[in-house]
Each structure stands twice: as structure tokens, then as C-alpha cells.
């Protein structure tokens, strides 16, 4: 008996010691795995700070072989680190399993060597089968009720709820669509926000490819374009989450691969034209600096794509396409006026076939044409040195022209209070009555003004007042008389066109500082905000939301404390 007890005690001691060793081993493995885990999760090259910095360096110094090599080496190093730590983790799991087995075995022995024989006390009453049967039946009934409840509730819970109502908004193109007035029908957007602290930022996502195109919005989707020398992409972002729903590369033909000369990669970029949406037919039309035009459906399927030839534009093509009924109109101004290369092209929106082409007597230009709903019928208004010209958007035939512009024009025209306003930095702003025909320079210009004129930002008007942003000098004029009411110097540079949101005007400078002022006859500053990064694109709006494309990120701005 004593020998048996001794043997049992020895087994118990040995198993306890084994347990201690196994426990220490497991702890060691866990610590090593935790360290490897930490290293593993930080070695993702897609968003690693070192990679991001190198990408930025590469963007600043395009084509630098040194940076490319450095980037590749860094990427490789991170991948090696990831798979090294991943191997540690996967091996660690097996070691952990082995340790657990040893621990379990020694534990079992320890328990079995200290087990005592059960000793029932008192008399057994015997089972109450009647009660047990009753409880069993109640249990089954309860389970049946629970299962029935689940069966009838699950269809309700799993019913797919449309998210359509959660993010309403249509902003079909540059400055809000074919008329490009820059006036938002959605006024419930915050005055203050901060892209750095995240104040009133619903989401912020990096846009993979660079571009100056502004966002276009259709319900739950935000469309923008991005491009570099080789690649051109259309991105569809989910308006609710910021997630990229789809992206599509555009290569419209053999000519697509030719890199247009003179494009200022960091200024105009290869993706300056803003997409335009056909909301009735669920189509998105895009254009790039290389002359590629494409039509996609809202699911990212390319319906058609066409290469219009590589534009000979010394800053890079920037005019956004315009949609009028089934006509997709491209203002493809290029070269010098004498080259006779510039043209207004009408494409069939359904299939991309050329419907008409009108040669234009101008050289390279950058303003986006607009559709002016004139009383006599819609007119397509274009601006380029030296003319503001109106065309019939159905046929491309010229209606009237005014010789009022000079220099490298950037601002798009606007139509307000029955007048067309055409402007450029080196000339003047002209208020044109669009009812004339032919050359109406001397007969239909209501008034002109030639101070503080914009070189990039388009003007803005509510029909009574007109605002212009000229290199930081913001001025307000009376639409009826052309008299300047006030002006203020913001002492910074602006590319994004001003927008009118209810009774407020939003101005975004190139550093991303946002100024909100009252849209009144007197200047009143309502607030300031900060995007936190450089911005050249004009904002877009939806219900309660403002979308701004920064240099690298797309921001969704929404009041967070509703």
C-alpha cells in the first residue's frame, strides 16, 4: 500500500513539474508570438508611412529611378518582414498546440492521481419520471416556441433595407452639372470642419491616382477620376462609407498610350475634367488629358470609349465634358488659333459616335462650357481667347460671339439673371445678353469690368450679385450695373471655384483653408475651416454633405452632432 502511494506521489510530483515547464514554455511562445504579431501588422506596404513618404517623393519627382529603386527595396523589405513574422506566428501556433498537449496530459495525470472515490450519503429517492417527463415536455414546448419565433422573425431581420435613402444627392458634374452655376441646392452642410482633427469629417479616403477633377454625385455614389502618364482611372466611392466600390481603367485605343506633352502633372494633372452623369440613363462620362473619352454605367461597366486624338494643349486639357440631352459635348481647344485644331465635338451619348464637329477660331483653352437655359432655347456657351461663343447644343452651329477675352483663360462662363458672364484674367468680365446672333460684341454687351479678374476660378452669381475670386482678391459686384460693391484680399492663392450654399459662400484656397462668408451686399465672415491638405478642385454637394477632393484624399464633410 505504501509503495503504491509513493509511486502515486511521484507521478503527481512529476506531472506538476511538467505542467510548470509546459506553462513556462507556453508563456514564452505567447510573448514571442505577441512581438511577431505586432511587427506583422505594421508591415503592410499599402499604408506604411515610409512607403507613403516615398510615394509622395516620387509624385514630386516623377520618374526618379533612385526613388523608384528605394521604393521597391522598401516594399521588398516590408514584405520580407511580414512573411518572416507570419512564419513565426504559424510555427508558434504549433508550438502552442504542443505545449497545450503536454500541459493537458500532465494535468490529467495530476488529477487522476489525486482523485478520490465517491461516497454517496443517504438513501436514494429514485427518479421522479413523471416530473422529469413533464419538464421534458415543457422544455420541448419552449424550444418549439423559440424556434417558431426565430423562424418567423428571421425573414424580417434579414430583409434587405435600402441604403438609398441614407445619402441622397445629385451633383451631376463640374460645379453641379451642365449649367455649372456653382449653386448648391443642399444647404445643410457644416460651416466648420477640420481634416486634421476629424471634426465633421464623415470619412476621408486616399484617392489612388492624382487629378484635379471635382467629384460628381449620384445618390450613394461619388465619382472622380485620377490619372498619371500611363494609367487613367474612374473611381466610384460609396457615399456612406468612403469605400471604393469599383474602379475602372480607361484605355480608349492605340493612341491612348501616347503621353500628351506639356501637361503640368502637379497643376493641371492628367485628370482635370470632371465626370458628368446622365442621371436618367445611369451613365457616367469621363475625359482625360490624353484625349480619352469614355462612357460607363453606374456599375463600372464601360459602355463605350473613344480616343479623340492627343490634345495639343500646353498646360494639359482641362475642360469637362457637358451633356445636353443625348449629346455629349467636348470643347477640345488646342494649339494656336491659326492651327485650326480647336473644335467643339458632339458625340452620341449612347454609343460615342460623332454627331457633329464645329471648328473653333481659338487656340488652347481650359474653361468648361456650360448650358445656358436662355428663353429662346438652350445655348452652349464657350470661352477661349479671344471669344465667348454661343452654340446650338443640338447641332454645334454658332449662334453668337463676343470678342472680349484675352490670355490663357481658365474660368468657365456662368449664366445668371438672363446674362452670360465671360471673364479672363488678362481682359475683362463681360455681361452679355444672349439674345443676339452673329458677332454681338458691340451690341449685346451690357457692361464690362476690368479689375481683379480671375485666372482660374469661375465666377459665381445668385442673379443679383456676382462674385469673383482673383488670386486671393475676392470681389462682389452688382449684376444689374456691374459696379463693385466690396472686395477683400485673402492673401492666398485659389484654384477651386467659389460655391453658393444657401446664404453662404465657401472659398477654398490652394492650401486647403476654407473661408465661409455671407452672400450679401456687405462682407461678413461667417467662419473658417481647414481641410488639412492642399486643394485645387471645386467642392460637390449632397443632402447634408459636402465632398472635397484634396491633393491626396477625398473628404466627406457632414455635421457629426446632428
Amino acid at each position, binding site marked *: *500500500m505504501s509503495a*503504491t502511494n509513493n509511486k*502515486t506521489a511521484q507521478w503527481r510530483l512529476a506531472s506538476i513539474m511538467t505542467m510548470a515547464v509546459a*506553462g513556462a514554455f507556453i508563456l514564452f511562445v505567447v510573448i514571442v*508570438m505577441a512581438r511577431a504579431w505586432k511587427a506583422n501588422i505594421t508591415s*503592410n506596404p*499599402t499604408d506604411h508611412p515610409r512607403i507613403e513618404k516615398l510615394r509622395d517623393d516620387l509624385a514630386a519627382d516623377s520618374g526618379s529611378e533612385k526613388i523608384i529603386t528605394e521604393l521597391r527595396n522598401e*516594399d521588398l523589405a516590408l*514584405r520580407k518582414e*511580414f512573411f518572416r513574422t*507570419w512564419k513565426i506566428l*504559424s510555427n508558434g*501556433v*504549433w508550438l*502552442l*498546440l504542443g505545449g*497545450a498537449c503536454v*500541459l*493537458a496530459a500532465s*494535468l*490529467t495525470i495530476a*488529477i*487522476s*492521481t489525486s*482523485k478520490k472515490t*465517491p461516497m*454517496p450519503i443517504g438513501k*436514494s*429517492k*429514485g*427518479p*421522479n419520471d*413523471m416530473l*422529469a*417527463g413533464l419538464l*421534458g*415536455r*415543457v*422544455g*420541448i414546448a*419552449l*424550444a*418549439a416556441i423559440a424556434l*417558431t419565433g426565430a*423562424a*418567423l422573425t428571421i*425573414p424580417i431581420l*434579414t430583409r*434587405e433595407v*435600402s441604403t*438609398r435613402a441614407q445619402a441622397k444627392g445629385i451633383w451631376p458634374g463640374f460645379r453641379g452639372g451642365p449649367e455649372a452655376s456653382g449653386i448648391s441646392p443642399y444647404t445643410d452642410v457644416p460651416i466648420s470642419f477640420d481634416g486634421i482633427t476629424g471634426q465633421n469629417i464623415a470619412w476621408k479616403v486616399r484617392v489612388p491616382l492624382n487629378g484635379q477633377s471635382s467629384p460628381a454625385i*449620384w445618390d*450613394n*455614389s461619388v465619382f472622380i477620376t485620377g490619372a498619371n502618364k500611363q494609367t487613367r482611372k474612374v473611381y466610384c466611392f*460609396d457615399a456612406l462609407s468612403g469605400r471604393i*466600390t*469599383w474602379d475602372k481603367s480607361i484605355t480608349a485605343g492605340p493612341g491612348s498610350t501616347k503621353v500628351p506633352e506639356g501637361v503640368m502633372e502637379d497643376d493641371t494633372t492628367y485628370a482635370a475634367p470632371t465626370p458628368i452623369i446622365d442621371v436618367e440613363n*445611369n451613365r457616367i462620362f469621363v475625359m482625360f488629358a490624353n484625349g480619352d473619352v469614355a462612357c460607363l454605367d453606374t*456599375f463600372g*461597366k464601360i459602355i463605350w470609349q473613344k480616343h479623340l486624338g492627343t490634345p495639343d494643349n500646353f498646360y494639359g486639357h482641362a475642360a469637362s465634358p457637358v451633356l445636353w440631352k443625348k449629346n455629349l459635348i467636348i470643347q477640345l481647344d488646342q494649339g494656336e488659333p491659326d492651327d485650326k485644331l480647336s473644335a467643339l465635338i458632339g458625340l452620341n451619348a449612347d454609343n460615342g459616335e460623332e454627331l457633329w464637329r464645329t471648328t473653333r477660331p481659338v487656340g488652347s483653352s481650359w474653361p468648361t462650357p456650360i448650358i445656358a437655359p436662355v428663353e429662346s432655347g438652350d445655348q452652349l456657351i464657350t470661352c477661349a481667347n479671344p471669344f465667348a461663343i454661343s452654340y446650338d447644343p443640338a447641332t454645334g452651329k454658332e449662334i453668337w460671339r463676343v470678342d472680349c477675352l484675352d490670355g490663357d483663360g481658365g474660368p468657365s462662363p456662368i449664366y445668371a439673371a438672363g446674362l452670360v458672364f465671360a471673364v479672363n484674367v488678362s481682359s475683362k468680365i463681360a455681361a452679355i445678353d444672349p439674345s443676339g446672333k452673329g458677332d454681338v460684341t458691340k451690341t449685346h454687351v451690357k457692361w464690362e469690368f476690368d479689375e481683379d479678374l480671375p485666372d482660374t476660378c469661375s465666377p459665381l452669381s445668385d442673379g443679383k450679385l456676382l462674385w469673383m475670386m482673383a488670386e486671393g482678391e475676392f470681389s462682389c459686384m452688382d449684376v444689374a450695373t456691374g459696379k463693385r460693391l466690396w472686395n477683400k484680399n485673402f492673401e492666398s492663392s485659389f484654384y477651386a471655384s467659389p460655391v453658393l450654399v444657401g446664404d453662404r459662400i465657401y472659398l477654398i484656397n490652394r492650401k486647403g483653408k476654407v473661408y465661409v462668408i455671407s452672400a450679401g451686399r456687405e462682407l461678413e465672415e461667417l467662419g473658417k475651416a481647414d481641410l488639412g491638405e492642399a486643394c485645387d478642385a471645386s467642392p460637390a454637394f449632397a443632402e447634408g454633405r459636402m465632398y472635397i477632393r484634396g491633393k491626396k484624399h477625398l473628404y466627406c464633410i457632414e455635421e457629426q452632432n446632428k
Partner: protein
Amino acid sequence: MRLITAGILVLLATSTCALGTEASKYPPPDLGPDYVQPPGHMPEITHEIMPIVDIAILAVALVLASYLALKQRSRKGIWILGVVSLIYFGFYRQGCVCPIGAIQSIAEAIFNPAAVISLVVILFFVLPLIFTLMFGRTFCGSVCPLGAIQEVVLVHPVRLPGILRHALGLLPCVYLALAVLFAATGSAYVICRYDPFIALFRMNGPAGMLILGACFIVISMFVGRPYCRFLCPYGLLLSWASKLSWTRVTITPNECVKCRLCENACPYDAISKPNTKTLPENRKRGVIGLLGMMLLAPLVIGASAWIMVKTAPTLAKMHPTVRLSQRVEREDSKEVSDTTDASQAFRESGRPVEDLHATAAEIRENMTKGSLIAGLFIGLVIALRLIALSTRRTRQDYQADRALCVACGRCFEFCPVDPRNKKPTDGGLA
């Protein structure tokens, strides 16, 4: 200490699943626009020897399990065989093929003439059933890796109230009906998809399976074999086969002396006490109860069938074609503005939308028919259980319940009549 072991198993499950999800998220390298990805290819099917080895090992394990449980009555032997099965069928063969999942392959092969089923799967399904018909649930006791892992982590068995046991005991029947229904309609292999221990066996798996596995391991520490008793659809089939078995595990090899030593030995509530002292009960009350249950049976069966038919449209969503059809419909009606990989792939395939909707409608119809049969089956099982609970059988001795006993051998060492337990009971395994 057992708590520590179980804790480590939970940690293990967490780390393995996290590994799997992390690796699958890692982005491919950006090799520049000029790089052309090499086309993927499927490896050729080779005639592997391993399935035959699996069958051989399964057969040997079943023979050994039956021998250890019925002839040797060795708890230690059963436990060791269970650990070996866990290592081989669980960790080495990664839980596949297993008889539990084979239910689905069999169901699909029966209802879908185009489905192909291998002999290995059939044998995996049939062999444990045959052995159970002969020797009781020896497969559950020491061959099934899912049973073994729950057996190993059981730390402090807690006896569940009878009402809860009977309520939860209904789940395997529902699970079996749904698993067969989904497999027969080609919707999904839910048993495999929601196998709680597979992530642990494979050292890989999605987060959902990780959480499920961790939950089951934690529950298994205190509730004996929760998956086997309250979910396993194959366990349900084996319990029915075990009721009809030629022979089975007994608590004592000789005459029971009613010493009560084994009274609390079973953590699975599979030991029935003798009831000769409490019988006869009120016979008239018993007969009325039984008649009531028999009259209730058609109502229960009908209600169950009705509920299942009502649920059929929801169940049909398990089928990928039905989901795709609904998705495409929502996209086309502009209810959603984005696409899924599946809907995009469908649109790029050029297949007519009408064709897709017609296929989905056919699947919904099949699902409705299948749901009716599944409902009738569930209702019948409920009705039979209600009737069984209203009947009384005399038990002279402490007996292992024919259906519930998983032949784990825990009760062997408590029997003083067993000649193997003549030595002092200060040894043995837990």
C-alpha cells in the same frame, strides 16, 4: 489547471484564425503596369492514397473503440484513442472527411442526380452507423475528433436542468433537417461552414468561425460535449441507431448492486437511475397524458411544416444563385448603387438576367418543397419525443441510456462489481 489548458486552446483558436485572416488580407506586390500576371491553373487531380488510409484507420479505430469500450472496459484506452483520433482526424487530416459533414454529400447525391459522391464519403458515413448498430456509440466516444476535443477540455462538468436539456436536445433535429435541406437544394454545406472546431484543426479560418470555436471550447469546459449533445446532426442519427444496437456499453459488466457510486459519474446525463421504487405512478394520469400527446402529434407536425414553408423564402437566400438574382434585381431597380463581385461577374458573363431569375425561381420552388418535408420531419421528431416522454419504462438497475451514452467509459471505474476495479480506486483517468 484544466482551466489553463482550455484557456490555451482558446488562445490557440484565436491566434490560428487571426493568422488565416491576416494572410488573406495581405496585398499583392505592385509590379508596375508592364507586368503581366501569370495565369492561374488548377492542379491536376491525382489518385491519392490518403483517403484509403483514412478509411482503413477509421475502420481500425472503430474496431479498437468497440473493443476498448465493450471488451476491455478501459477508460484510459478510450481516452488515449480519442486523443490519437483528435490528432489524426482533427489536426492531421484537418477534420475532413468526417461522417458529420458526409450527411450533406449523401443528401446532395440523393436529391441531385448530377452530384458526384466518392466511395470514401459513403464509407465515412456508413461505417460509424454500422458499428453503432452493432456496439452503440463507440464512434462518438473515442473516434470522432469533435467529441475528443470536447472530452479533453471538460474541466468542471455542470449538470444542466432537465428542462434545458430537452429544449436544447431539439436542436440537432432542426440542424439535421436544415443541413439536408440546404445540401439537397445545392444551397450550402452548413455543417462544414459552421463547424466550430474546424478553424482550430486547420490553423486557419474566418473570424466568425474563430468566435464560434472559442465559444464552444469555453462552454465545453463546463458543459459536457455541448456540440455532440445539442447540435451534432450525425449524433442524432447515431443515437437512433444506438437504440436499436445489438449490444452496447453497460455501466457494470455483472449484476448491478445499486451502490450509487456511478450516480454522478456521467457528465452527459446518460445514466438512468432505477425507478422501481417510484413506480407505479398514477396510471390514469399517465394514459391521459399519453393520449393527449398522441392527439397533439398531427397538430405539431402540421404546424412545423407550415412554419418551415413560411420560412422557405428566407432559407432560399442561402443559395448563391438566389442571392445573386436578388442582388441583380436590386441593382437594376436602382435600389443600390454599387455592385458586388458576383453581380459584376454575372454581368460580364453576358448571361441573360431573365435566365438568372428563372433559375432562382426554380430553386425557390424546390426550397419550398424541401422545407415542407423538413417541417414534417421536425414535427414528427417533436411529436415522437413528446410521446416518449409520456411513457414509463421500469428500470431495475443503473443503466446507460441507449441513445445518450457516448461510450466514453467514465462510469467504468466507479463500478465495484467490475473485477478490473478491485484495486483501490485512487488511480485512473478523469
